């Protein structure tokens, strides 16, 4: 005769698999494909960002990284009091990280749409950036 655990554990395992499968379907269906980056509510192409911005090379624990300084991207996007806001950097897969101005101004955006910061954990190096929201 089956004990309580022998009944409940396979059911939990099935529920776990269903959660994994449905969330995978949900994530795939909600991937955002776009060729612009929204900054402070306005869409910019990568070409625009690079032609208007200031390129900078920073030193990270994975070596040197070159891109446009986030500091100037935000200023060029028309944010007045840069120090008054937090900034949420969003990726196309839903990943997002929020940083304050003191961190943001040290970072860069590369031509492969990834941000890097010299002194943060890698979890802040958001890939496939689609938006920088000014909060």
């Amino acid at each position, binding site marked *: 005769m089956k004990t309580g655990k022998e009944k409940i554990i396979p059911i939990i395992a099935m529920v776990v698999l269903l959660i*994994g*499968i449905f969330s995978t379907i949900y*994530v795939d269906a909600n991937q955002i494909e776009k060729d612009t980056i929204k900054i402070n509510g306005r869409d910019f192409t990568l070409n625009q960002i690079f032609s208007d911005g200031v390129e900078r090379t920073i030193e990270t624990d994975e070596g040197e990284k070159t891109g446009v300084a986030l500091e100037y991207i935000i200023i060029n996007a028309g944010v007045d009091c840069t120090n008054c806001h937090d900034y949420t950097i*969003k990726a196309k897969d839903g990943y997002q990280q929020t940083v*304050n101005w003191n*961190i943001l101004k040290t970072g860069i955006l590369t031509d492969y749409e990834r941000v890097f910061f010299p002194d943060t954990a890698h979890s802040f190096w958001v890939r496939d950036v689609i938006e920088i929201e000014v909060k």
Partner: protein
Amino acid sequence: MNNLKFIAGILVFGSLWGFSECIIGSSLSEKGLPTGAIMTGFFAITFLVISRMTYHRPGMQFGMGILAGSLRLFNPFVGCHLCSALAIMAEGAIFELVWYKISFDLKELKPITMQISMGIISAYFVYIGGYIVTQILTPIVSGSGFFVTNLIAFMPNILSSGLIPALIGAVVLPIVLSTRKLDLRLKDKLYYPTTLGISAFCWIFVVGYWFILA
């Protein structure tokens, strides 16, 4: 089993887990494979279950996680030491929670369906639990502050990412449990030299490289 033997067990299994995360995990990452999923589904589950089968003591897997995470902090091969170290430390603790109601003689896990089910449950919750903990703690520890909206927005991806480790765990756990029939116990006079020797090798290799590359 005396406490010294138990601590030596934590040391050797935690060191092996940390070593595999640093060395094997780094090579998998370079090849573009889903490193986290493989490391948790295969290596973490293997070491955690073997240690539970061998030592029959609560707290061991938590200690192993702390030790493996500490070793990961010294890993010179790939970055994000803090994120992975926090995740590994959390994984040990989550494994203890998941297995809390399972007896140490593992008598509930005789049917193969129970073994597969526990493999799925363990690997899934250990993986997504570690992922969630690191998403919360990394911004806090690194001083940037935690924003719950960032975690909520990414939750579907985290829940989805546990699927591969769960499937790996479903295969790995029955295989690991089948080794119960093998008698791998060491004689007392060989136990301490072997456990300490293996642990020392793991730490010297990883930390030594860290000093060389620093």
